[in-house]
């Protein structure tokens, strides 16, 4: 199985450990992982700001980098969703369509494609799971609280396989963290307040770590935790699933 690793720009620049954990985890699970080295960004920062018309360059580059693989796997629900919903390229629409079908967020890839049933990971801590909105309501990697439907959670299903890990309950299981791309600076007051309230929910329930399938949310929550000099840390779900794995 030839898998292309899609590492979002801010993960590449700020959170390389999450990408390394994703790569190692996929390899341990038997995938032949390739990293197309000319990849940059999915184009979402422009598109969500109203400049989707400026994403042609990113789209072309994405198609050139990621065509021809069995799957494209990304440790970010948000960037995966952007590609799934918005990747189009002039003259390369057929390839773009293939990519939109083959791109997966990491936890859904592990559960739906690799059908992972057990992991030899160990992480003996109390962990709060932050559901990223794009993963949750966009990719449906878990059931959202708004719908009258059967509950499920692909990230939680995987975290349950980790030795010693205790998932803490939350008062609001899927309220947004307030990052929202440029929203975090344009609407600074509301964004920061949303982040503070999310952090407080995890902290008051005794979480030692906050994890998520999206690092953009975690980057936001980490900024608030560090400002508060909190001992609570953020960690991408891939780093937990890859932790102490033989």
């Amino acid at each position, binding site marked *: 199985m030839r898998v292309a690793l899609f*590492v979002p*720009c801010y*993960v*590449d*620049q*700020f*959170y*390389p450990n999450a*990408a*390394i954990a994703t*790569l190692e985890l996929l390899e341990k699970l038997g995938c032949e*992982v*390739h*990293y197309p*080295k*000319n*990849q*940059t*960004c999915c*184009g979402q*920062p*422009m598109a*969500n*700001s*109203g*400049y*989707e*018309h*400026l994403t*042609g*360059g*990113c789209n072309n*580059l994405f198609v050139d980098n990621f065509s021809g693989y069995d799957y494209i796997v990304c440790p970010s629900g948000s960037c995966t969703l952007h590609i799934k919903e918005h990747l189009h390229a002039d003259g390369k629409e057929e390839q773009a369509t293939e990519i939109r079908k083959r791109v997966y967020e990491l936890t859904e890839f592990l559960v739906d494609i690799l059908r992972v049933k057990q992991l030899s990971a160990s992480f003996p801590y109390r962990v709060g799971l932050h559901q990223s*909105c*794009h993963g949750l*309501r*966009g990719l449906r990697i878990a059931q*959202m609280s*708004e*719908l*009258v*439907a059967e509950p499920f959670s692909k990230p939680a299903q995987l975290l349950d396989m980790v030795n010693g890990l205790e998932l803490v309950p939350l008062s609001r299981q899927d309220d*947004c963290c*307030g990052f929202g*791309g*440029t929203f*975090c*600076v*344009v*609407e*600074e*007051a*509301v964004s920061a307040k*949303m*982040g*503070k309230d999310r952090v407080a929910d995890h902290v008051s329930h005794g979480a030692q770590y906050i994890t998520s399938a999206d690092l953009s949310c975690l980057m936001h929550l*980490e*900024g*608030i935790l*560090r400002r508060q000099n909190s001992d609570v840390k953020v960690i991408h779900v891939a780093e937990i699933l890859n932790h102490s794995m033989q």
Partner: protein
Amino acid sequence: MSTTTTKDHPHLAADFNRDEPRVNWHDETLWWVRAKRDIAAHKLPEWELLRETASQIKFNVLSNLSTYLEQFEANATKNGIIVHWAADAAEHNQIVHSLLEQRGITKMVKSKSMLTEECHLNDYLKDHGIDVIDSDLGERIVQLANEPPSHIVLPCIHKKKEEIGDIFHEHLGSAKGESDPKILTETARQHLREVFLTRRAALTGVNFAVAETGEFVICTNEGNADMGAHLAEIHIASMGIEKLIPERKHLGVFLRLLTRSATGQPITTYSSHFSKPRDGSEIHIIIVDNGRSIQLGREEFRNSLKCIRCGACMNTCPVYRKSGGHSYHTAVAGPIGSILAPNLDMKKYADLPFASTLCGSCSNVCPVKIDIHDQLYKWRQVIVKEGYSPKAKTMAMKAMALTLASPALYRMGGKTGRLVFKYAPFAVNNKLNPWYNQREMPKAPDESFGEWYAKRKGAKNS
């Protein structure tokens, strides 16, 4: 009572956030309403089917709107109701005024109608010497406070009971410092009873207009629409063109959804049907367009006209909960207001589609399944293309797009200070970095993943 502010959502929201305990209170109050909605929805196993059915019925209505409007007009007229058509807010207000003027009426009682808020009817009538009293308790409170409603279902949700006590003390003569909700409600009840008994004209909104029968349905919890309409000699009902449903049986879908979504109640206390005037009285319906036919013509935004004004998207919206209804500076606040308002005035409301994280909660609580967050995304594209985006932002976005489209520039940008900081989202149009105000910056690692990978043994570069 029109909103005269020139501040945009980020500034108004920042003002609201100066009092953090108040934000917490506001957020928790609305979340409590959302939680009540969840409990009510989960009691119906067929909830999602109901939502889908309602959405499809409204789709049918919007696809055949002119037919249903004419059918409704014909049946209502047959019933003895007088039907008026208003192209815009001004015409609507003129019709109301002329109906009152012809009868020499200078005082009117009005139950909740967001359409009249949209048309700024109260201001218009006040300027023309007509005294309007809002009879919905929440609306009466904000009217006395000389403020617009902050929520379409809970107009004074931003006010604490102590503040309401002060307003009632000043205007209705309740005891100073009285904040017991029961006593305050009784004060309002006595005051409004006098109003109901003496007003010759009553204006109401319309929740559902049934094309098949020419009747219309008004949903209230206080019975104030009925009190006004039954005691007045003329009942004026204002409705947007999208309020239609084809047949009476469809009410079974919408009435089950409306109040469960709004407040978690199984049904409104009063769901009153008006089909013909009592002997010696008149019913007038004003059917208002005011931009709706333009929205109907915008294919990507058409579905916004399915809205039944339950307010569930506001209660669930984390941005609304933490910024308050007034920060939207429009009659209909929150996510639904943010996709309706730019249709009326794109320049004035260019900020609203950006007052969202696109979290998608709104679209999934919506009882008629409006794709609200997708429409917010689409409005952003329209607003930028129409030139209502700040120039500095456009420059930053162009620089960013150029960098991200080139692997070489991207790598260089990363090395010289971690690109993401350089352009966005942190550094758009800034001297002071708004991220850093309440949050630490991420720590830049020694090397990027790409740099680490290039050194890795047996790296599968492609």
